[in-house]
């Protein structure tokens, strides 16, 4: 058989080419891109910490996991933790309200860490006429969403970026102050879980291992089968 060429150069109809182009032009919502910013701010330090020698899947057999989580987690190395957590969370969002966050944590923690808002009825498939442009998406929230929601998310991201920067500059005390400020401004913030991860990192960097452990335990008790809970355990163990 001849060498495989792209469909668009190998007999695709106009309709099929339009289909391909539409698919390549799909882009995430502004909210998703804001979370990507949070990822940049958070995971740099987390990456270094984890690379230092955490055991990625050690928490996989924790009894609190649902069947789905166990299946997903046990069937993969590394990525399985992730997929399990995501799937469990997706399942919860689609089928039942999340459990209330009753934690002895200093401030409320979102029960659904990364996506605190209810699932959207209309997903974002972007238009071909607007090729991938995260910048534009970030600047022009879709009309269906209230602008204030994106504004708040942006402010939350900025607040956490400041805390992360303090941490990266080896000033955990300052990071903790900034995280306190974040908690005061956003008591039920969309990025509360990210803030907990940063707080645990800051506490560890500050030498306050007991407090870090307490934070991680409190979070895990409230969200036992989430990727964040697993990560927090890794962080505490890896130090």
């Amino acid at each position, binding site marked *: 058989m001849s060498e495989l060429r792209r469909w668009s150069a190998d007999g695709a109809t106009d*309709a099929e080419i339009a289909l391909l182009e539409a698919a390549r032009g799909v882009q995430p919502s502004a909210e998703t891109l804001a979370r990507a910013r949070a990822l940049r701010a958070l995971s740099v330090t987390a990456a270094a910490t984890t690379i230092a020698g955490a055991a990625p899947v050690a928490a996989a057999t924790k009894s609190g996991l649902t069947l789905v989580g166990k299946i997903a987690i046990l069937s993969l190395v590394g*990525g*399985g933790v992730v997929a399990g957590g995501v799937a469990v969370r997706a399942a919860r969002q689609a089928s039942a309200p999340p459990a209330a966050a009753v934690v002895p944590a200093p401030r409320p923690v979102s029960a659904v860490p990364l996506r605190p808002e209810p699932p959207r009825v209309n997903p974002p498939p972007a238009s071909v006429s607007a090729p991938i442009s*995260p910048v534009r998406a970030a600047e022009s929230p879709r009309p269906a969403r209230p602008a204030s929601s994106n504004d708040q998310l942006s402010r939350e991201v900025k607040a956490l970026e400041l805390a992360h920067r303090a941490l990266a500059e080896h000033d955990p005390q300052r990071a903790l102050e900034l995280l306190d400020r974040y908690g005061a401004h956003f008591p039920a913030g969309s990025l509360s879980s990210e803030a907990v991860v940063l707080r645990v990192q800051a506490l560890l960097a500050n030498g306050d291992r007991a407090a870090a452990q307490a934070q991680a335990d409190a979070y895990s008790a409230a969200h036992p089968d989430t990727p964040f809970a697993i*990560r927090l355990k890794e962080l505490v163990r890896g130090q």
Partner: protein
Amino acid sequence: MIERALPPTITARETAPDVRFRSMVDAHFVTVWRALRHLGVPEVGADDGAQQVFLVAARRLDDIRAGGERQYLLAIALRVASEIRRALRRRREVPMDTPVSEPLCVATVDQQPEQALDNKRALAMLATCLEGMSEKLRDAFVLFELEELSAPEVARLLGVPVGTVASRVRLAREYIRESLGSRGRR
């Protein structure tokens, strides 16, 4: 990409892995998110899925060769997507993704045969088609036609010979063409 929308936050004290990780997020987050969606991860899981792909990558930063980031991330995305799909399948009460579940796209296409497809409808059609085909075909098609990896790259990611990739991609095309009811139209 994301970088353009952000204030510069990289500080002099950040390590090389930190900087590299950031640049990976900037350059490839949208790709990973989009690939997860095309690979069948529902909207409610795609954000978390993309985030977790990068967390896995962060753990393995030393294993990722310079220039091979996108391919590596897509390899992780494949596994994450596969696990999410499997977990959701076993949990029957969770619909995979209701918004794209138009029964089939044939009738709609027949109403406007020669016209450019409405974009949203096109995406809904494609999603329906992708959902209907086997995962083997879907993975090969998404990586080769939508993410535009080379056939040898796809072969490496899927762990199959290049010839198998070619045959899966061609079968996927046929499936889509039949689903669209657009055979022969130019």
